[in-house]
């Protein structure tokens, strides 16, 4: 099919004209950073666990799903129509803390009882084990949710409806209508980045993790109980997945559903691999990259410039493939971590 210059060139120019308007740029950047914050929180636990232990945790998505449902449950039970926005946000913070504590404990118990016995096998068996557990968690969630009269898919609208009006309304930023939730997500994302950075660089366990990612045998030789560090870090990674799930609870693009178990996992993989497995800095950069790419392609589709409906998803996984072709170890990854 020959490209017809008479129609193609004006279209490109028109696209560029529309792109370089302040309202468009504001929209792409704010929405992109909001999405990036979500991607970061979803992915960072996965990368911490992989960096220290070399275990690719397939339960990560299922844990986020649990977080979303537990969060949704608490919100639905405690919020009524007249509840004030500030109270809702305060409740949300309480839910974050509760879910983090619960899932950290659950993750630690899981690592201690099931993963610990198979560290001496090839990495494949850790993938298989966590994958199997993820299947079980998803099915159990489906049974429980259904028994309460809620459909496991599509997303649970009751929980999504507990979001305060300030987040569902759109605000005018440089002429672009942007949902309030994105600002909230960006704030939480920054808190998460700073929090994890402080944990890694200012605490003893952070030191263990950084050292353990470099050379676990040396760390062990220096008298540090690496096994115990594994259990704690696996728990923290799971807790972070839970926080990510709570964050998805109000997001109109996600919401609590059984589908999260796989969707979250796949997106978290993309972010982690683009950034480099085990790299904190890489995860931050990759989350921003993926978030902006997501909002840009969503804009392309929303304005009708591109009519292909699956463009955002295709772009995100396409980014993964391109990154792996040109730089297999990811942006900041160390070559051959988790190798054969």
């Amino acid at each position: 099919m020959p490209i017809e210059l008479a129609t193609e060139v004006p279209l490109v120019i028109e696209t560029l004209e529309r792109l370089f308007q302040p309202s468009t740029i504001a929209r792409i950047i704010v929405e992109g950073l909001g999405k990036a914050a979500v991607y970061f929180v979803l992915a960072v636990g996965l990368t911490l666990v992989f960096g220290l232990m070399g275990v690719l945790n397939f339960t990560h998505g299922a844990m986020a799903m649990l977080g979303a449902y537990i969060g949704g449950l608490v919100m639905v039970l405690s919020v009524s129509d007249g509840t004030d926005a500030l109270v809702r946000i305060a409740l949300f913070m309480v839910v974050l803390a509760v879910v983090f504590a619960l899932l950290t404990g659950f993750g630690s118990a899981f690592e201690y009882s099931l993963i610990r016995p198979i560290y001496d096998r090839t990495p494949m068996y850790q993938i298989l084990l966590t994958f199997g557990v993820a299947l079980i968690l998803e099915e159990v969630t489906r049974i429980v949710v259904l028994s309460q009269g809620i459909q496991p898919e599509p997303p649970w609208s009751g929980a999504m409806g507990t979001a305060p009006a300030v987040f569902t309304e759109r605000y005018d930023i440089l002429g672009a209508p942007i949902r309030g939730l994105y600002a909230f997500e960006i704030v939480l994302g920054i808190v998460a980045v700073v929090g994890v950075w402080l944990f890694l660089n200012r605490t003893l366990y952070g030191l263990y993790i950084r050292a353990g990612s470099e050379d676990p045998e040396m760390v062990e030789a220096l008298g540090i109980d690496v096994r115990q560090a594994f259990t704690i870090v696996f728990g923290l990674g799971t807790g972070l997945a839970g926080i990510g799930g709570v964050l998805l609870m109000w997001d109109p693009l996600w919401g609590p559903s059984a589908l999260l178990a796989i969707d979250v996992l796949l997106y978290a993989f993309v972010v982690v691999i683009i950034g480099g497995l085990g790299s904190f800095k890489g995860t931050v950069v990759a989350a921003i990259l993926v978030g902006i790419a997501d909002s840009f392609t969503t804009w392309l589709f929303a304005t009708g410039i591109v009519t292909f409906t699956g463009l955002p998803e295709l772009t995100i996984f396409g980014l993964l493939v391109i990154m792996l072709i040109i730089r297999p170890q990811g942006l900041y990854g160390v070559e051959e971590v988790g190798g054969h």
Partner: protein
Amino acid sequence: MSSSDEHWIRSYGRDQFPHVLVVLGFALYPILLGVLNRTPVASEASAFLPGLTFMIIVLYMGLFAISFDFISGYTGYLSFGHAAFYGTGAYFVVLAANGQVPGVPEGMPFMITMFLGATLAFVVALAIGAVSFRLTGVYFAMLTLGFAQVMYEFIRHWGYVSSNPTEGATIPSGADMSIGVPFVDSLNFAVGRLSGDSFENVLGLGIDISATMTSYYALGIVVLLSYFVMQRIIHSPFGKVMIAIRENEERARAVGYNVFWYKMGAFATSAFFAAIAGALFAAYAGGASPDNSFYFLVTADALIMAIIGGIGTLAGPLFGALFHEWFEDILSTESDGLSTYLEQLLPESVLTAEVAGLTINDFIGTFLDGRAPLYLGIIFVLFVLFVPNGLLGSIRDRLGGTVSKRIPAALERYRR
């Protein structure tokens, strides 16, 4: 193991003894099912034995799981995006049947489009492998998964496939999906859930062969041939290098093998047979959708079957598939499973009796109907933890060699 004065046919036959048993078992199963249905245990049989429709799934999913095992079990490279090849095969035959593949005229026999689709998957695998085999371990698994996911998202939104691409495409009702020798009508048997050939009073023996049965046998022959090709490759020098790569890739390279091309060859061959499995599935199901062909969970099913059956045993995944589908069958209501049986067996008063606020009926509905994934997940985890070699792998460990080598020798001992 054979003595030198023995005729080669005898020793060959003895080596193939377990194969013959398994093939006979599969071939006679529909007849057994038919006979049982006329006996007093008919309701037990239909509740606890896999129905024929599930046995057909065993065949094509078994072949897919075998092809997955061919690359993952023998070279140690976990192909997490194997559904991409299964989907390629399935979509190719569906699009070809609709005349939508450029260069393939409408009405091309299914056997040829299946072969073309498999060849396409072979080429796609070479392209994916060229990139992916620069990496190992977890990275290889993730990269193949990434490619498969891109293809999944693309096919889900590609308007060319059908007007509603998320629902997939169907084979037009008039299309001839026959397995057999192309262009020889009498040696072709149409397959399909509803549209297959059926025969009444075969050879005047009073035996009726239903459309499902025709599909079962036709698919079975393709699966059998595919298995033997893969089995030959595994037992050839090429296959030995594949195993060497799994055990110690550095050493295989140091010995002088160009491991990259061995891996590429193994991956592409595996993709070829995965596409055959996909094509069989599409022909039988009368269409394909993204979620039952290209999706990650399709690979996951093959993975579960391979682990339960025994990874690195080639034949094991077929038994894994049998186990998987048997479980799906007895826990579903589609063809008289466990719940239907219990509902018929237990009197109404028991079914509605409450135990801690839960009636037996509720219990069946909540914990049995369609809950196979839950129990399969639990069984899968138990296998990973305690039976990492799977069913067939553990049997081989127990016997100290492959079944075909050990069973005849054991029989021989008893005869003397």
